[in-house]
Every structure is written in C-alpha cells, then in structure tokens.
C-alpha cells in the first residue's frame, strides 16, 4: 500500500461516466487526497483497488482534469480537483 499521509479536508472529486459509472456504481466519488497532491495514476490505482471492475475501463478511457484533457497520467492532482474518466464517446 502507499505511504500513509493524513488526507486533506477537501477531497478530490472523481467523475465517472458511462461504463466507468457502471463499474463503480455511482457517477461521482469524493476521494481523499493528501494536501500536497498525488499523481493521478497512483490515485486511480487506489480507486481500482477498491473498485476492481474499473481497471479494464480505465485502459480504454481518457482522463480530464478540471475539464481539460490530462495528457500526462503522472500529473499531480490535489484537493478540490475534478478528475473525470471518459470511456469511449458514444454521442450522435
């Protein structure tokens, strides 16, 4: 498991769409994150440990941080951030 740090009072908000929502069961999760932040991929690894069905979904998904595409999955995310999981789009 990861090193233990006290979570910040303000969590990170995880937005889960379509198959990601189905895998987790809810459309959003408030996820604890240390005040100094954590890399997005490590944070999602924590989420996957709790929701294993999400692992396969994440492989085909794009990530958005605060509404913008997150090119680097190792980027640091922190309290108050909104991290969205976008499975393949299905509009139209």
């Amino acid at each position, binding site marked *: 498991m990861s090193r233990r740090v006290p979570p910040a009072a303000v969590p990170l908000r995880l937005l889960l769409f379509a198959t990601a929502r189905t895998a987790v069961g809810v459309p959003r999760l408030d996820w604890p994150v240390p005040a100094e932040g954590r890399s997005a991929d490590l944070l999602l690894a924590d989420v996957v440990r709790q929701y294993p069905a999400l692992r396969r979904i994440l492989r085909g998904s794009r990530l958005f941080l605060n509404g913008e595409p997150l090119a680097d999955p190792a980027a640091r995310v922190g309290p108050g951030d909104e991290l969205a999981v976008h499975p393949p*789009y299905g509009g*139209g």
Partner: protein
Amino acid sequence: MSTRLSARPLSIAAAHRALDGPGLGGVVVFVGRVRPDPTPAGPVVALVYEAHAAPARRALAELEREARRRFGVERTVAWHRVGRVAVGEAAVVVGAAAAHRRPAFQAARFLIDELKRRVPVWKERRARPGRRPRQRPSPRRGRSAG
C-alpha cells in the same frame, strides 16, 4: 456559430434558421434520430444521453471553428440532446452553410463524424418506457442513432 447541449427537443426549423444568411446558397443539415434497434429486452424505446457538460460544449465549439477553418463555411450548427430521447426524436443536429454546396456537405459530414469521436457524450439504451431495468452502458461502438 451555434453549439447547444440541450435537455429540450432540438428544433430542426431553428437549425435551418441559424444557417440562413445573405449569400449562403448551400445549406446541409444532418439529423440523427433514435432508432428502435432490437435488444434482448425488446426494441429500444429511448436513449438516455449523458455528457460531461463543460468539455462537451468546448469540444462542440472547437469542432465548429475547425469546420469553418478547414472548409470555409460561414455558419455552422452543432447541437446535441442530453437526457432521455425517445425513439424517432432528434438526438443530434449538425449543419453548415456556405456560398456553394461542396463545402457545406464536407463541413456537415466532418461535424457529425468528429462529434462522435471527440465530444464527451455517452448513451444508454432503454428498452421499456419509463423503467430502468439495469445499467446498459453504451457499448464501445454503439450507434443506435445517427
């Protein structure tokens, strides 16, 4: 330039009005309607669309800018429904207007093709009216409309 992500019915007449303008001799409108495709629970009666709203609006606006830049069209429409859309209703309306027909066709085709690829919208199928028997997320290549 007209983007819309709307829980209310899309007006095709309004789309044509948005594409009207002096000198715009060629107008192309594409309407994607919900089809009653078969499912194990019976034919689809509706699709429920969800969107990641802010990025979806930005993606629609970016598509329009790109369509104008690439094809030289003067007016464009890129509208998508969210929420429950019954069979036969329009889930998506895109269109383009230019002096001549060729760029209007190219831009309209570009808008719907790229909308499907780039705009964070997803659909779930509903096979029975009003009920939500179990989660049926949109398959990777699901295309019950358009």
